[in-house]
């Protein structure tokens, strides 16, 4: 029994390592397939750097070495936990990511909690209620299809610029978190709610729901205690998947609201072709992916007892 568990854990760790290694290799390859001299990219079009300075930059970043050697050196440094130094910001990649991770995690978590709360509330309240469900579902589709950028500007115009309830300012305090989190949460809530409502409606039509009602349970109790558990499995899968999209959405939301964070850092790294930083961020997303999929698997076990006996 313990041996099986250990083997499972070892397999999982190996798989995680393979994912990380693959991500690192792919990111490295992608950035090298992009045409153009990295030094020219680092300097940008409006520079007057002399040939000597360009050579100094090239040597400094090891760009004068052959690609294969660079990749091996790169992997070697990764193995020792060294993510390298950003081309543009002249600081350690680990240091930069560490510094910007906090605000993004805060934003993503707040958005996730909001999204799940809105979705569960909306689905439980409207499932199986014909016309109301249809109307709410229409609004949700609108939220899903609206670009977060536009939603953000809209929320800012109304709640910050006109009503003055929330500041535009970055990440100092809680009020400043509300609008960005809501911007990020709305489309996610829309998707979750659609899926959950459908699951609930299916579950409510099943015989066990009818039996429960017959035992004298109220409508709401049936929904919350029995149907919700049934409908939750696809919700958990989706939530795991959508957490990844939250990080993607954070790029735009952080830009609109002038918040610090990984999103803003990624945008800057990609537009500046800041290779070490881009690779570092790709590794981070791979890590997040691995962690979330593990968590999702564990959650399945908690929700559905049938899975535990396998």
């Amino acid at each position, binding site marked *: 029994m313990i041996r099986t568990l250990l083997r499972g854990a070892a397999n999982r760790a190996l798989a995680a390592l393979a994912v990380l290694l693959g991500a690192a290799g792919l990111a490295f390859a992608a950035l090298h397939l*992009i*045409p*153009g*001299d*990295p030094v*020219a*990219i680092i*300097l*940008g*079009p*409006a*520079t*007057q*750097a*002399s*040939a*000597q*300075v*360009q050579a*100094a*930059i090239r040597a*400094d970043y090891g760009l004068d070495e052959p690609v294969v050697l660079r990749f091996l050196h790169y992997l070697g440094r990764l193995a020792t936990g060294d993510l390298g130094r950003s081309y*543009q*910001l*002249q*600081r350690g990649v680990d240091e*930069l990511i560490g*510094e*910007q991770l906090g*605000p993004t995690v805060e934003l993503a978590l707040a958005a996730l909690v909001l999204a799940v709360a809105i979705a569960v509330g909306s689905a439980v309240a409207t499932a199986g209620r014909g016309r109301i469900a249809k109307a709410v579902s229409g609004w949700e589709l609108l939220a899903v299809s609206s670009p977060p950028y536009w939603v953000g*500007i809209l929320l*800012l*115009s109304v709640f*910050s*610029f*006109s009503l*003055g309830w929330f*500041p*535009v*300012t*970055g*990440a100092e305090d809680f009020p400043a978190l509300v609008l960005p989190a809501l911007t990020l949460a709305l489309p996610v809530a829309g998707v979750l709610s659609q899926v959950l409502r459908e699951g609930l409606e299916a579950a409510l039509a099943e015989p066990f729901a009818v039996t429960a009602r017959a035992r004298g349970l109220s409508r709401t109790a049936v929904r919350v205690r029995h149907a919700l558990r049934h409908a939750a499995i696809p919700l958990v899968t989706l939530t795991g998947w959508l957490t990844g999209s939250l990080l993607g959405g954070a790029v735009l939301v*952080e*830009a*609109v*609201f*002038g*918040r*610090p*964070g990984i999103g*803003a*850092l990624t945008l*800057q790294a990609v*537009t*500046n*072709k800041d290779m070490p930083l881009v690779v570092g961020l790709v590794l981070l997303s791979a890590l997040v992916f691995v962690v979330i999929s593990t968590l999702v698997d564990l959650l399945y076990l908690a929700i559905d007892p049938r899975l535990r006996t396998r």
Partner: protein
Amino acid sequence: MSPSLPLRAAALVSGLALVLTACGGGTSAGPTTSATSPVPGGELTVAVDSEPVSFDVHVSPQDVTGEILRHVFDSLVSIDAEGRFKPWLATSWEVAPNLKSYTFHLRDNVKFTDGTPFDAAAVKTNFDRIANPATKSQLAASLLGPYAGTEVVDPRTVKVSFTTPFAPFLQGASTPYLGFYSPKTLAENADKLGGGGPVAVGTGPFAFTGYTKGQNLVLTKNPDYNWGPEGAAHTGPAYLDKLTVRFLSEDSVRVGALTSGQVHVARAVAPVDAKALEANKDVTLLKSDVPGGNYNIYLNASKAPFDDPVVRKAVQRGINIDQAVKTVYFGQYKRAWSPLSPSTTGYESKLENSWPYDQAEADKLLDQAGWTTKDADGYRTKNGARLVVKWPVMPPPYLREQRDVLGQAIQADLKKIGVEVVRDQPDIGTYIKQVYGGQTDFTDYSWNRFEPDVLWLFFNSASQPGKGGQNATFTKDDELDKLTETGRTTADPAARATAYGKVQQRAVTDLALVIPVYTPVNSAAVGKSVHGLAYTRDSRLSFYDVWLDKK
């Protein structure tokens, strides 16, 4: 016992009144109650459009870096409103007749904010650092030109030498990019200066006290400051206690934050927002024509079709620039006639209206150049080849001011005279390779610097792209070489003006190497509680003289 009804109503009304006055504060309490003389104190927030990539003022070429760090670093000389050089950290200076050395006499009792004194050795340490390739300067080193070295004559006297005559030096010395770090911080923190923050120690009216990447930076008053540039509105420390710079990249968010009173000043107002802000009584819109190079299109004269000057003239006359600039920028920007911006010393005003839009003339010139036949799509051909202009679009984030939309108008105009303009939008690596490798026909950019020596950068044959130069005409014209050399090796303002006047005429009228398009405008929206904010002669916002209404 509960209060009687009238009492409760009264409380309600007065509460409402309170709320109403609080909301209306911006409109009624504005200019009428404001003091007329400066009040020290207060904290000002300015929203800027982009976050500096590097905060090392000796390394970064960004305008926004220079504008912000101007408040942390002082220069040897300043430029006054008339464009003359005035004392700052140097009280006086002598220029050698051969323009190969400049001797500066430094002001007494100037201190860096870490307490160390500013002296001749500090000047030498800073200039040597900029010139050292290991610093990887992207702009400042070019402002030092043919730098030979700096000699400490005595603690208060310093002599900067060049290998060849170098007239543009005083202008370079007036920019923040040739500002001074404390030698102590250079010795201890050289590798951390790009990250900004308290390690960036200068002599300026503000100290760089805080930085949150992606969010804001904070400058606080240097209480000992007593060496402002001659020509400033006051002496002594800055009025503001604190200057917070917020990074808000979205145009509409910056404007919204300003009109809702969350920031005092918004930099880089988009032309589309300008009209509404001008109509807003609570906001002042400051505008300043950017000096240096206009937004110009440079023609690659090293290969067909633009190796033929007649074809170059034809496209120059075949674009309705007035119409395009007016439409795309809502009448906010002026069309250009010269590659040099009108606010730059040496601007040649004779060029104005000298080459107006003339489609018939353009057609005639193309006929004359032998592009007489047309293909099925209506484009001109010669010996079976179509007349095509390759003009790649700069990729974001380098693409500014809707220049891609302006390009569409130009494309449509040229189609009318039978010229096909091909516009791809490659990534920046490919863009640089194609454009700076001379493979394209049109190159477009603007260049902000308050000094006509930018013409050397645009047209001298030594300014080759790929060697750090910007001569996107890829041509060598002896006359242009001679005139731009004269400009940088002559101290006499009249002689310089003559030379630069001829450069502009030769490049535009004689050779048609360039199509000037518009003069970029810096603009900032300012709330009514802010006083004393203006653009400097070299088009930067300066907060040294700024003060706020007492709350």
